[in-house]
């Protein structure tokens, strides 16, 4: 192992401190006995208990999960379709315009997206609630899905699709039985991205949510405005834990796949 020079060590410490000290403080204080967030009064898991008693929080969490699940699934279907047409559709009239328009919402300020959706829902007389949040989240997260999926489609040997056609597949069958399995990692990544985007979106959700449906970020934000409660710390700690587990397991799975693939290829070359 290489030893770090003092410069590298300092840079590393500063960088990681910058990223993680705030979260660390939050986690530590979630186990605080005291109701006062800034005063340490001993270790306790009391706020976790209270959190699970708080029906408003649980409702908000349930709404958030449903919104995230449905909107990311819709966004994945639409985004994959858009990516497929833009990458594989050949040169059709207005292709550059379309691909530009697909990516535009990525750089659009969320306030504008939220406001325009709000105006749309009001003008067509749609009651705001869980359904409108789902629509709004689908709208902005499908762009992210289509970016992820099209990058996979671009670096993909086209002759595999042609082989499927050549062997008797209709274009749809070729897409379903060959293209889709091969771009599956990107589709799944796109879904996860859409899911997390939907989970932590505050701005667009607050424009499009109605009194009947409140998402977790809205709930957290509104309760923090009345003062940070230790319950929020507990909730955030749970969220951090979930995200960490997700990221670590995803990277472990993909790393094991790569190692396995390398080993297989070596074995094949030796056997030949």
């Amino acid at each position: 192992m290489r030893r770090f020079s003092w410069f590298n060590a300092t840079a590393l410490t500063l960088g990681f401190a910058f990223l993680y000290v705030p979260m660390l403080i939050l986690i530590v204080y979630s186990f605080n006995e005291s109701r006062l967030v800034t005063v340490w009064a001993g270790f306790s898991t009391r706020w976790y208990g209270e959190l699970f008693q708080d029906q408003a929080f649980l409702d908000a969490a349930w709404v958030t999960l449903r919104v995230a699940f449905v909107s990311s699934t819709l966004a994945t279907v639409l985004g994959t379709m858009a990516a497929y047409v833009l990458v594989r559709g050949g040169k059709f009239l207005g292709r550059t315009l379309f691909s530009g328009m697909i990516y535009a919402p990525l750089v659009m300020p969320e306030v504008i997206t939220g406001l325009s959706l709000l105006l749309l829902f009001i003008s067509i007389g749609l009651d705001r609630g869980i359904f409108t949040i789902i629509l709004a989240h689908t709208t902005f997260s499908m762009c992210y899905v289509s970016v992820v999926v099209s990058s996979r489609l671009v670096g993909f040997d086209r002759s595999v699709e042609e082989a499927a056609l050549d062997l008797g597949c209709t274009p749809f069958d070729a897409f379903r039985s060959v293209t889709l399995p091969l771009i599956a990692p990107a589709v799944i990544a796109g879904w996860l991205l859409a899911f997390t985007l939907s989970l932590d979106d505050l701005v667009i959700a607050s424009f499009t949510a109605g009194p009947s449906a409140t998402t977790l970020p809205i709930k957290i934000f509104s309760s923090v405005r009345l003062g940070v409660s230790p319950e929020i710390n507990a909730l955030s700690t749970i969220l951090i834990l979930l995200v960490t587990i997700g990221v670590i397991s995803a990277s472990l799975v993909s790393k094991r796949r790569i190692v396995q693939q390398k080993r297989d290829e070596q074995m094949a070359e030796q056997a030949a």
Partner: protein
Amino acid sequence: MKPAVKPAAVFAPWEDENETPLIRFDGVTKRFGDFTAIDNVDLSIHRKEFYALLGPSGCGKTTLMRMLAGFEAPSEGTITIGGQDMKGIPPNRREVNMMFQSYALFPHLSVWDNIAFGLRRSDMPKDQIGERVKEMLRLTRLEQFARRKPHQISGGQRQRVALARALAKAPKLLLLDEPLGALDAKLRQDTQFELMDIQEKTETTFVIVTHDQEEAMTVASRVAVMDNGKVIQVDTPPRIYENPKSVYVADFIGDVNLIEGRATLKDAGLASLTWAEGAPEIIATAGEGLVNGAKATFAVRPEKVAISAERPDDRNNVVHGRIHDIAYLGNLSTYHVEIAGGQIIKAQTANNRRLSRRSFTWEDEVWLSWTDTAGLVLAG
């Protein structure tokens, strides 16, 4: 290198006027924007033929093949397969299968499922599919790899999976796009013979695209030499080699000496070429379309040029020169001899004795000679 045992009747359906070809191209042109990839091509390919499309990269051979598969449509002209006009028929509805240059194996499916892929989309009953896949695995000697995924087998095995997959549906026509391009030289040679074997066993019509002239000559019953979107000459390998119709073909296939000059037609299908002041004229077989007095090129293969220390007196074509370079290849030696006017003529001899002393060395004065029929005088 043709097989030692020839079939009793020579296979040459293209010479029989009663035979209808399986594939016909009639005035086929393909344009991509301003670029003409295929320029007014007429072709006919017969049943059970092993037909090679040969040419440098960018000559249009791959486009021609992709039109047969249905991935490209001709801009003009018609393509018929088995008498049926192929216009508007998509790849999945053609009895044509293709082996791709990159093999295009489905990485998420096992060898078995790769081969069964086409069968599952045909009207073959389910219980016969397994039998057919087994047969294909046997044919390509892949039985023990059936359960592996494409990344778990070697390059040569992948090539055989691609072949088995393309042959599984027993297509009328099999297209092979540079099938051996990714294999190393030794494996490539073995595989060429394997391909010929399989072609004979399955009695399928093969069309192969290649830029490797040795490969085309080895495997094909007929070779179509292409250049710039045009078919220059279609013939059997020996005729392509010995009777090239143009300087381009002579130069593209094998090694050749070319001498430019003016032709004079003579009796008995011969012609003479005046090529340098004071030098004796060269006598050779007259090529097609040769015009008296016009510009012409004499072409002779190095192995048909004899090299000797004394002037031979039994041959009409004799030139004097000096050895400029010797390429010793083991089985052959090629002498690069500088003749009058500074032109280099290559003469090749077989080294059929192990212990003979090399007769010539650098700067030796030698005589080059060849017979009247050794070379051709070609127009242009």
